[in-house]
């Protein structure tokens, strides 16, 4: 975790030095933390509450997205639905071990029926909260 990062931070001080810094920036630990952050990322904007910050939140939603670091784009966008489906297929191939006979082969000897076609979500699984023993 990034806790380790903090220990290696050259800005960390001990003893008397720490007291001096605290007096410089007020007693606030928040200010000390702010100084640490600015030391690491000098290009960080003054106010995180600006529109860049919030715009990223609006685009990605409620999940972590609010960094103001320039050049870091955490928005998940797809070029079109084909791109989306390709990305989903890649993810599925990585996650799922092959599950028996290939259901995709419906071409060739007979007209496919709805039962033959692969389900859109073959990974649909019951929640683990609902399965297993009650402890």
């Amino acid at each position, binding site marked *: 975790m990034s806790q380790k990062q903090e220990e290696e931070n050259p800005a960390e001080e001990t003893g008397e030095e720490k007291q001096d810094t605290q007096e410089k920036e*007020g007693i*606030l630990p928040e200010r000390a*933390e702010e100084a*640490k952050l*600015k030391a690491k990322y000098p290009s960080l904007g003054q106010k995180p*509450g600006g529109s860049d910050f919030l715009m990223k939140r609006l685009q990605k939603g409620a999940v972590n997205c609010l960094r103001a670091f320039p050049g870091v784009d955490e928005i*998940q966008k797809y070029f079109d*639905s084909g791109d989306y489906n390709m990305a989903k297929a890649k993810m599925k191939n990585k996650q799922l071990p092959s599950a028996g006979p290939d259901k995709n082969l419906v071409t060739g000897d007979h007209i496919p029926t709805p039962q033959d076609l692969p389900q859109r979500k073959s990974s649909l699984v019951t*929640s683990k909260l609902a399965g297993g023993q009650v*402890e």
Partner: protein
Amino acid sequence: NDIQWCFSQVKGAVDDDVAEADIISTVEFNHSGELLATGDKGGRVVIFQQNKIQSHSRGEYNVYSTFQSHEPEFDYLKSLEIEEKINKIRWLPQKNAAQFLLSTNDKTIKLWKISERDKRPEGYNLKEEDGRYRDPTTVTTLRVPVFRPMDLMVEASPRRIFANAHTYHINSISINSDYETYLSADDLRINLWHLEITDRSFNIVDIKPANMEELTEVITAAEFHPNSCNTFVYSSSKGTIRLCDMRASALCDRHSKLFEEPEDPSNRSFFSEIISSISDVKFSHSGRYMMTRDYLSVKIWDLNMENRPVETYQVHEYLRSKLCSLYENDCIFDKFECCWNGSDSVVMTGSYNNFFRMFDRNTKRDITLEASRENNKPRTVLKPRKVCASGKRKKDEISVDSLDFNKKILHTAWHPKENIIAVATTNNLYIFQDKVN
């Protein structure tokens, strides 16, 4: 007399390798407390039912129903994925034999009917028992079909789908005390719906600026008042809460009350606004107070006093000197929820390291407990935890640097009438109850 909390049950997989779909995203008791619903990132809802047969196992909940509420979708116009993650579940008060709940993902709200079937008709004249039709020429006598008991089956069916009303991501839904309408809130707008009508909704709050460059705050949560059907509140990313009265105007852009605690400008830092962002707002059952949760604290507000909260409880103040790291690992943006107990005397919220905190408003005492499988013998009293902020760590204390920030308790719920709580870790649901003598 302080409550002694005991482990009752834990639901979910033991393994550490958590599939994303299993991440619990919401927990909610129904109005009687008999049912407990959870939603997860995979769009599934699991409902548990309280075991009422034995009085000593009233903290025992068993699976009642589970269904796929939402599925992932693709917004073709914007080339964006719409997550199936259930953001919120809210129960309707029970009107008949069936139960109803609203569940929502980022874009679509659904009304689900959960009903029991414990009888089935048998003895049809024209159909065999397996459903195949009989040859009518073989029917020589008539009989009256009768209902016969069958194994209990619980069915969930979507009764209403409220879609296409939100450009931004829905963070809250709240049912009005009139039991006919409800609101849904996204980052910039709040809509009012009628439970029977899916093809239209009224926009009641719109904070989208004409020029998006001027955007300074977003809506983070919204809730209807528990008794006044015309009143609702919404919180913002800047730490303010606005109370609106729908009788004042159709569009409630002008608040009736603005709750904001003044901040000393000399204390301001880069992190001030981020940690002041309110992640949850909940009215007390009485309707007189509301509680807000920001990153480091829980505040209780008296609706009659706008200029400051009446009570403030520090959840994990020791994190204030870790804000730099918490910003880097994104934890500073975690959205913790909070809840009241049935009598509004105790409030609860989650923290890191699978710790959760309770604050007794009367005794002013607080306690830190841990949701962990290590204490999983039923009726074992939970041992209070303590985090050592700095200096010498006492025995049994945990130092701030040893906290696991991946183990966060964001969602907790308190039974409306009893001392039974549901606490969600990343992928497990813990149920605790007070010690039975």
